[in-house]
C-alpha cells in the first residue's frame, strides 16, 4: 500500500476524533513548546553573557595581588600589593606570547569639573590597556608611553563620567580636578555597557599608572597586572609561565601558596556560563519528562483506537492487508499525532519566547537547530510510543478481529 494513501487514512482517522486528537497532542505541544521557549531564553541569555565576556577584552590574563590578613580581617584580592611594576616589566620581557602588559592601580576618587563633581572609579593603567580591552575612543587620543614615563597629568574619560561632568559637551581638551590635582582630558571612550557583574564599565576615569601612583594614591604597589596574549591558544601556556616567573621573583618556596592569582579570560567565561548550564539541564529535564508524559498519552490513545477499530483491522486483513500494512497505518497515525503536536509546540514555543522578549525584555534567541531537533524528537516519540499499539493491531487474528463486537 502506498505511503500517501496510508497517510491520508491516518489523517482522516485523526480528524474523525478531533477533540481527542488535540487533547492527545497537548502533552507533546506543551513539552515541545517548553523546550523551545527554554532554549530561546537560555541561548538568549548565553549570547548576552558571551557579549559581556568579549567586552572584557581579547585574550586577557588578569593577575591580582594576594590578600593580606591583619587582626583577622582579610582584605580581598589586590589589597596586599604583592605585585610591583618590576613584575610587570619582567612579564613583558620574559614570557613569550605576551603582546601587551598594563599594570593596574584602582581606587575610587571624586573628580570635579567647573561646578560639577562626581565620584567615579579611578584606574591607573598603561597604554596597552585600551588595546587589550578592545576599547575604542569616541574622540581624542589615549595617553602615550612618554606620558606614562613622565607621569603626566592626563586622563581618558568614560562616557558615564563625561556625561555627569560635562553633559552633552565634548570633554576632550577640558580640565578636571582629581583630588585637587588638575588633569587634561585627552580622550573620550566609546560606551562599553554593563560588566559581567552588572556594574557600569563606562563610569570610569583612566590615568597613566605612574601618575596614579605618584600624584594620587602614593602607592608603589599594584592592585594587579593585565596581560594580553597573542592568541587564545597561547593563554594557558602563558598563564603557567607567568605563575612560574612570579613565584620565582617573589621567592615562594615549593609547596607554599602563591601570593597572587592568575586568571585567564576563558576561565572567567566558564564560570559565568556554568550557572546557565545548570539551569538549562534542569529545565531540559523538566521538558523531557513532559515529552515522556505526552508520549505515554499518545500510546494510551493509540491503544484505545486499536481496540475501537478491531473490526476495521479485521476487514483490512481479510481483503489482503499484510501485518506490516496495519503496523504502518497505526504507526503513521501515531507519528502524525506527535509530529503535528511537535509543529504546534514549536509555534507555541516561538510565540512564548517572542512574548517574553517583548514584555519582560529578556533577550531570546531560538536557534534553527533547536527547532529541527525538537521536530525530529517529537517524530521519534511517535514512533517509540506508537510501536506497541501498532504491533498489537498488526498481530490481531483476522477471524477474531472480524467477529469482534
Amino acid at each position, binding site marked *: 500500500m502506498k505511503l500517501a494513501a496510508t497517510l491520508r487514512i491516518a489523517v482522516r482517522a485523526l480528524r474523525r476524533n478531533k477533540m481527542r486528537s488535540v487533547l492527545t497532542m497537548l502533552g507533546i505541544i506543551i513539552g515541545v513548546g517548553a523546550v523551545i521557549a527554554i532554549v530561546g531564553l537560555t541561548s538568549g541569555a548565553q549570547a548576552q553573557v558571551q557579549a559581556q565576556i568579549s567586552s572584557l577584552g581579547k585574550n586577557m590574563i588578569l593577575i591580582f595581588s594576594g590578600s593580606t590578613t591583619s587582626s583577622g580581617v582579610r582584605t580581598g584580592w589586590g589589597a596586599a600589593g604583592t605585585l610591583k611594576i618590576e613584575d610587570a616589566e619582567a612579564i613583558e620581557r620574559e614570557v613569550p606570547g605576551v603582546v601587551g602588559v598594563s599594570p593596574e592601580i584602582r581606587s575610587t576618587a571624586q573628580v570635579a569639573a567647573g561646578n560639577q563633581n562626581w565620584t567615579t572609579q579611578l584606574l591607573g593603567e598603561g597604554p596597552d590597556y585600551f588595546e587589550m580591552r578592545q576599547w575604542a575612543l569616541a574622540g581624542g587620543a589615549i595617553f602615550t608611553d612618554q606620558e606614562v614615563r613622565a607621569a603626566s597629568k592626563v586622563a581618558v574619560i568614560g562616557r558615564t563620567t563625561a556625561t555627569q561632568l560635562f553633559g552633552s559637551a565634548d570633554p576632550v581638551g577640558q580640565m578636571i580636578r582629581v583630588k585637587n590635582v588638575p588633569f587634561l582630558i585627552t580622550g573620550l571612550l566609546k560606551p562599553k555597557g554593563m560588566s559581567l557583574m552588572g556594574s557600569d564599565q563606562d563610569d570610569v576615569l583612566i590615568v597613566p599608572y605612574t601618575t596614579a601612583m605618584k600624584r594620587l594614591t602614593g602607592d608603589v604597589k599594584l592592585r594587579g597586572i593585565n596581560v594580553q596574549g597573542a592568541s587564545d591558544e597561547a593563554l594557558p601556556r602563558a598563564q603557567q609561565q607567568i605563575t612560574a616567573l612570579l613565584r620565582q621573583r617573589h621567592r615562594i618556596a615549593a609547596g607554599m601558596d602563591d601570593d597572587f592569582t592568575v586568571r585567564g579570560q576563558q576561565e572567567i567565561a566558564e564560570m559565568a556560563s556554568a550557572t546557565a548550564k545548570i539551569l538549562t539541564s534542569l529545565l531540559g529535564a523538566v521538558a523531557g519528562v513532559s515529552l515522556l508524559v505526552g508520549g505515554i498519552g499518545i500510546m494510551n490513545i493509540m491503544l484505545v483506537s486499536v481496540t475501537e477499530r478491531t*473490526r476495521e483491522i*479485521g*476487514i483490512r*486483513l*481479510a481483503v*489482503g492487508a*499484510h*501485518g506490516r500494512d496495519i503496523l504502518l497505518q497505526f504507526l503513521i497515525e501515531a507519528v502524525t499525532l506527535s509530529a503535528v503536536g511537535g509543529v504546534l509546540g514549536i509555534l507555541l514555543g516561538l510565540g512564548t519566547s517572542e512574548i517574553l522578549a517583548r514584555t519582560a525584555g529578556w533577550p531570546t534567541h531560538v536557534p534553527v537547530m533547536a527547532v529541527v531537533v525538537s521536530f525530529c524528537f517529537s517524530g521519534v516519540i511517535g514512533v517509540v510510543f506508537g510501536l506497541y499499539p501498532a504491533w498489537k493491531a498488526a498481530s490481531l487474528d483476522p477471524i477474531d478481529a472480524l467477529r469482534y463486537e
Partner: protein
Amino acid sequence: MAAVIRFDALSKTYSSGDVEVHAVREVSFEVQPGEFVAIMGASGSGKSTMMNILGCLDQPTRGRYLLDDIDVSQLGRDALADIRNQKIGFVFQGFNLLSRTSALENVELPLMYARTQQSAKALHARALTALETVGLGKRAGHHPNQLSGGQQQRVAIARALVNEPALLLADEPTGNLDSRTSIEIMDTFQTLNDRGMTIVMVTHEHDIALFTKRNVVMRDGVIVSDILVPKRSVARDELARLEPAPVP
C-alpha cells in the same frame, strides 16, 4: 478444467486445554468452476470452520487444500493475505464496510492492498466498474450509513469482485436482510454465477439455499449430504411474484 476448490481429507482440530474439538473431520470435497454451492448445517456443525479455511483466514490441522491449483494449506500469514486479496472475494453477514468511508473507497480497499503498482485513477475506474456491476454506480460517493442494508451488501459484493477473484465466498450474506432484499441479493449472485463466477455460500436458510445449484449439508464436522438442487428458485421470478418494489 481444474477444480476451484479441492479438499483432500482435510481436518481442523481446536484444542482448548485438555479437550480436543474436531471441528472438521477428514472432509474431501471439490467445487468446479461456475458452481454455486450452499454449505448448510446447524451451529456447531463445522460450517463456520469450513468457511474460515475456504477463505484462507484459517489453516487446516491436517489434509490439503488446493485453491485454484495452489496448495494453500502450508502458506504463511502474508502469503495467505495475498491469496485472499487475489483469489477470494468475501461477503459477510454484517456487510463489514468501513464506516464514514465512501462506497467507492470501500470497493477500492482490496486494490490498495494488491501488490501491483496502479495509478489512483485506474483504481477509481476499476472500483467504479465493480459498483456498476452491482447497480450502484450512482451511489459511489455515498457513505454506508446513507445506504440501505441491501445497498450496503451490494457494495460489499462489489468490493469482493473488484480484484476479479476465482471464488466468491459469502458468509450468511442475507442474515441481516429482509426477505425481499435477500432475494435481490440472490438475484445479484445468480447473475454473477450466470456470467461464470464460482460462488460458495454458507447459510442456514433453506429457501435461500434453493437459489444455489448445489447444497452441501454438514453435521459434526463431516459432510452428510451433497446434492444438486433439483428445482432451483430463480430470483427474478420470485421478485416478480412479490409486490412491486417500492420506488427507491
